[in-house]
């Protein structure tokens, strides 16, 4: 009986191919939207997590500014800047911190011969390589003397190296950053992965004092990286740093912090939070579209039941029970919305693939979501098909037979 009902349903749907297509459009769009959104959302979450992993989970970032501001917000307007003394204090006075290093960054054009390339110039010191767990592939790190005097030595990220030098050896060669000329002393290993949408290997490291004096023109340190000793919790290290910094910055017991300590997990959860809010929002839109799709199915099923009144009369006359007629029309609306769901799933996965290619994030299709979409379309078919099917089942056989 069920087999017959499915066969009949497919027959009825095929007879009105175009109308059926229009009917399921709402379901198609709803399902496709959900699948595409969640696929892209999951992909970007995966990306963020991968990014965090490349930065290292045992890393803390300290910046001046109100705690309520995110790590992406600029240096707090009123808050005093950090200093090189802060860096040393954090490293020396806090037992839970292994290494601390300053990091001032600015986007600049780097020039070699007739090639210029825009890159990120970061003023830091040798400890940067330890904190970021980032070995050199060739050359050496800064000498103490270079750091002290802020002389013009620089270490290239692999992207910059490739852009400026291709396959030739950059060591000992001078490049120019703005009007400063500096000698290449080392090359960083490639991190490979991009981080938060930027290429981490697109970087030039110079001594922090050189950055302060010749690029920034002040003594500020805009960010400090602190790596936590293994076996010590992030929260403990954070609390230690906060206590020290409050002391150093003379913040009264009832005053708020004027600096931030972020850990990478916090950053990742903030970013994935944004992603999930967006996904949720768009999924709500998709849910409305599914609802509209369901109403569309109900509408067309009602039309179909009316059009086929005579057929229903014939079926009742030859002995169909209410349940059998109900089943037939219910199966028809379920099949209809399942077809819509299937098309939507295929379309949604296609759009998700396209979207993740465009955003260069991993394609992350979710099998349980696909199953859920399938089940949900069936549910839409049942819920919105029930009323029309019941109307068919409850018809009076004589009136139905008399219907023209």
């Amino acid at each position, binding site marked *: *009986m069920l087999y*017959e009902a499915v066969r009949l349903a497919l027959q009825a749907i095929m*007879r009105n191919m175009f109308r059926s297509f229009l009917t399921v459009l709402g379901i198609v769009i709803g399902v496709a939207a959900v699948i595409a959104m969640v696929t892209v959302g999951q992909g970007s979450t995966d990306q963020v997590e991968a990014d965090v992993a490349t930065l290292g989970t045992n890393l803390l970032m300290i910046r001046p500014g109100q705690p309520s501001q995110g790590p992406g917000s600029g240096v707090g307007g009123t808050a005093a800047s950090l200093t090189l003394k802060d860096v040393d204090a954090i490293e020396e006075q806090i037992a839970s911190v292994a290494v601390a290093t300053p990091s001032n960054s600015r986007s600049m054009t780097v020039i070699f011969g007739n090639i210029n390339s825009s890159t990120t110039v970061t003023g830091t010191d040798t400890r940067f390589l330890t904190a970021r767990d980032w070995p050199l592939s060739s050359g050496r790190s800064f000498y103490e003397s270079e750091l002290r005097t802020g002389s013009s030595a620089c270490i290239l990220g692999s992207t910059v190296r490739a852009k400026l030098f291709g396959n030739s050896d950059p060591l000992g060669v001078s490049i120019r950053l703005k009007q400063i000329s500096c000698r290449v002393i080392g090359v960083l290993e490639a991190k490979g992965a991009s981080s938060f949408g930027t290429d981490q290997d697109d970087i030039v490291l110079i001594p922090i004092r050189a950055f302060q004096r010749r690029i920034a023109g002040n003594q500020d340190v805009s960010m400090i990286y602190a790596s936590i000793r293994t076996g010590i919790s992030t929260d403990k290290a954070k609390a230690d740093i906060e206590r020290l910094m409050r002391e150093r910055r003379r913040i009264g017991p009832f005053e708020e912090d004027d600096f931030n300590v972020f850990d990478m997990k916090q950053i990742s959860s903030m970013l994935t939070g944004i992603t999930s809010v967006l996904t949720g929002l768009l999924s709500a839109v998709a849910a409305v579209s599914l609802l509209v799709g369901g109403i569309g199915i109900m509408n067309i099923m009602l039309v179909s039941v009316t059009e086929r009144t*005579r*057929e229903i*009369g*014939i*079926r*009742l*006359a*030859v*002995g*169909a*029970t*209410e*349940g*059998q007629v109900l089943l037939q029309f219910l199966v028809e609306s379920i099949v209809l919305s399942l077809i819509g769901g299937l098309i939507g799933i295929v379309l949604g996965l296609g759009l998700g693939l396209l979207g993740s290619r465009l955003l260069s994030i991993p394609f992350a299709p979710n099998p349980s979501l696909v199953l859920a979409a399938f089940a949900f379309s069936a549910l839409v078919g049942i819920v919105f098909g029930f009323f029309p099917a019941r109307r068919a089942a409850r018809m009076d*056989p*004589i009136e139905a*037979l008399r219907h023209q």
Partner: protein
Amino acid sequence: MTGESTFGKVAGPGALPSPDGAPLISLRGVTKIYGTGDAEVRALRGIDLDINGGEFVAIMGPSGSGKSTAMNILGFLDKPTGGSYAFGGAEVDHLGRDQLALLRRNFLGFVFQGYNLLARTSALDNVELPLIYQGMARTERRRLALDALAKVGLKGREDHDPSQLSGGQQQRVAIARAIVTNPDVILADEPTGNLDTARSHEIMDLLTDLNRKDGITILMVTHEPDMADYADRLIHFLDGRIEADTIPDKAVPHAL
């Protein structure tokens, strides 16, 4: 589908429980009133009628006299307003919709003036329809439907759909559909109303055959005395009442 066993088919025609030789069909004081108040139409005003298994009954009467109303009630498609109906000796007045559907499915076959075949559906599929609702397996269904179509002379037309068949052929498909379940009674409301004389006689021969050879009880409404002549009992309706119930003189064989 509760009640399936209650009304499940036990054996062929004539095997119905019929205590004390009670008639197959028995109406007592059956009335039918459509509408209420000013719009009230008293379609049946008290019908008493007994029909035995194996009879071939023709029902005649002017238009609006209640013939179709009576047929619908006899065929479990409608319920009377008053009176009682016993089928095979059993009261059916208090049965629900689904139980009536089971009675139709297992004991009755319908033939309508307008054929009432499913459009865009092959003759074979049309004939299989009642068997689907009986839950019969596909191969068995197919076999019985092919047999029924052969019996009404439509061998080779199984794949035609109604639009590819003449009126007479369509009515044969309808008859095949009516007999495929091996019913006790065929109810035919003006089965030849849309057919020319030659085709009408063919259909009547077919019905007569089913009555004589298979023992199927036939109740047929007709306007044409020629067609009524095939029956062995003639009932006249007038204003919702039975005006006459006669056994015509069958001494003169019907001239073809």
